[in-house]
């Protein structure tokens, strides 16, 4: 029987291909493409006063998004996502460089150690940050004891954007580190040595040789950090004390707190368009090799 099927599929390679790619195509179609259309559909429905959704088409949800408050949340989301991306890059680059150049045979272990914490619950780790960042927490207390901060300092980390940023960097660091590491690891050492040989100072070498050569990794890491962090809602909620809200919090608010699905759908649609545009530009600029970089 199997033999006959195999022979049939051999004669009809198209059928074989369809069978192989079919299930995942269906999954992608129904769980990625169709839901996007459903967002669009819900975003033009009406919500009546008792909270029920009516099949009346309207653009009102988009109109009510035209509100400076939504705009500022969006701007804050983009700014915090950009800040997270830049900080991740600034931290991950020297770390990745150190591991690549001086890690020796411990390289893989060092990278693995960065990823290891992600095996335990993300939530537990995020909650742990509350106790590290609070006013009488480990970090501020240590800084006081060491003398970096005066005893009567007014520095507050928790429930404001610094805490949000710190924990976002913490959460997304490996998304940046791994592509950078992969790119640096592929870097041709002789090229760097040639650059030094030709008289490039280290910083000069970094700027005009190393960075351009790992451009793919930088781009991959940046998109992998920037795009998901726009929609973050757990970290700004917990670390920002529900004051420093981002787009994800508004989605939570619209869908689960106020039960206003049409409005939430309109928000989600706007975000989706922004994100798809970024992904599109990114895929155009690096091609699929860039996405592969993170995993190879």
């Amino acid at each position, binding site marked *: 029987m199997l033999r006959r099927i195999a022979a049939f599929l051999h004669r009809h390679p198209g059928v074989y291909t369809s069978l192989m790619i079919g299930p995942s195509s269906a999954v992608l179609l129904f769980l990625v493409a169709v839901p996007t259309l459903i967002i669009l559909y819900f975003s033009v429905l009406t919500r009546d*006063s*008792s*909270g*029920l959704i009516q099949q009346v088409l309207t653009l009102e949800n988009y109109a009510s998004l035209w509100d400076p*408050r*939504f705009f*500022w*949340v969006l701007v804050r989301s983009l700014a915090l996502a950009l800040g997270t991306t830049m900080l991740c890059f600034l931290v991950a680059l020297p770390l990745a460089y150190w591991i690549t150049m001086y890690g020796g045979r411990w390289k893989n272990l060092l990278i693995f150690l960065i990823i290891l914490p992600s095996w335990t619950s993300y939530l537990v780790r995020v909650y742990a940050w*509350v*106790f590290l960042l*609070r*006013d*009488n927490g480990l970090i501020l207390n240590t800084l006081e004891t060491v003398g970096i901060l005066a005893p009567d300092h007014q520095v*507050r980390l*928790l*429930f404001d954007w610094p805490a949000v940023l710190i924990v976002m960097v913490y959460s997304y660091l490996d998304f940046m580190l791994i592509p950078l590491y992969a790119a640096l690891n592929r870097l041709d050492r002789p090229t760097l040595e040639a650059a030094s040989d030709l008289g490039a100072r280290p910083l000069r070498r970094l700027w005009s040789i190393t960075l351009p050569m790992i451009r793919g990794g930088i781009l991959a890491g940046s998109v992998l950090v920037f795009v998901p962090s726009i929609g973050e809602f757990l970290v700004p909620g*917990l670390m*920002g*004390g*529900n*004051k420093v*809200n981002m787009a994800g*919090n*508004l989605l939570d*608010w619209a*869908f*689960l*707190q*106020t*039960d206003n699905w049409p409005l939430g759908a309109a928000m989600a649609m706007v975000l989706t368009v922004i994100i798809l545009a970024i992904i599109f530009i990114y895929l155009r600029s690096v091609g699929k090799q860039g996405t592969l970089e993170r995993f190879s």
Partner: protein
Amino acid sequence: MIRKRILSRKFNRRQFLKSTAAVGVLASTLSSRHAFVGFAQSDMPSELLDAVAGESGELNIFNWSDYIDEDTVPQFEEEFGITVNYSTYEDNEELLAAVKADPGAFDLAVPTQDMMFRMRTQGLIQTLNTAWLTNTINLSAQFLKPEWDPNNEYFIPWQWGTTGLAYNSALIDDPRTAGWQLLFDGASDFSGRITMLNEKEELISSPLKFLGLSLNTDDLGEIGQTRDILLNQKPHVSAYLGAEVKPLLITEDVWAAHLWSGDTFQAQCPDEGGNENLEYVIPEQGAELWVDGQVLLTDAPNPATAQLWMNFSMRPSVNAQLTNYVFYATPNQASLDQNLVDEELVSNPSVFPTQDILDRLEFQLERTSEEARQLMCDIELDIKS
């Protein structure tokens, strides 16, 4: 077998059960389970038990998280041979969303009284068979035909409490601790040391009370005044939190918080590790009084079993046990009369307010005015954006 299990359980427990049902269980376990269910008839009407027998033998409860004593469910399961599927939620809105999204998933839920209104208008709950609910007689007068459910046909109270003010008396020595002025007038003096509750209704109730207004006002002008108060306060507010504030009160990161009575009591935690400097006040301008009650959902697969549970929950022993565990007040007068509630709770005015305090409290009812609701959403957005 059954007796052995129950005996060991009972003797391990901190409080020894005194209810007639428990004694009945002990006495009746010599025979089969049917026999002992039969015995329980003193407590449960036989029509109810017959109806329960016709159902699936399961019960799907949807309750607030951390809102039940660990032993309550096992006790019910053992007594009636029912399997309880117990799920939890964090706030009323989540409950509403879940009930709408998955009709038929639950038999009963425990909304706050104002949410019960909304669920009723949306047709999500059904009337109870009052003849089955024999233990209603145990309820305190206050809950025995309340304004929001005059016939006790929708809503069986579970626990009640107040939303007031928690502060650290060692850190704040200020006359304003008597009322809401601490959180609003005093905001700048304790900048970054105060927190407010995160939920919209709660958040807007406190400035309404601060202004001396009813928290059920539909007057747009009155509600509108809260916007400025809250926005002026916002720069000084450390965070808008729910129960998450408790550890921060203990560690003294937060000095004053807009908080529920039971949670404050938990943070004071007389057992160990709590902060004894914490005080709970019901502000002089008045505050919100609320009660969470059990409702029978429209698509409940096991309506009789749900009502069996409701009747069970109104047993003085069971409800007292809840109060002793979660530190909220029991709506069950019989529990108090039979001295089943821990003395430290009964004597604590923040858990069981005295009559003069009770007079200052107000229940929140469902707002009928759509404009008022819209305005509240808009104010919430101002705070959250």
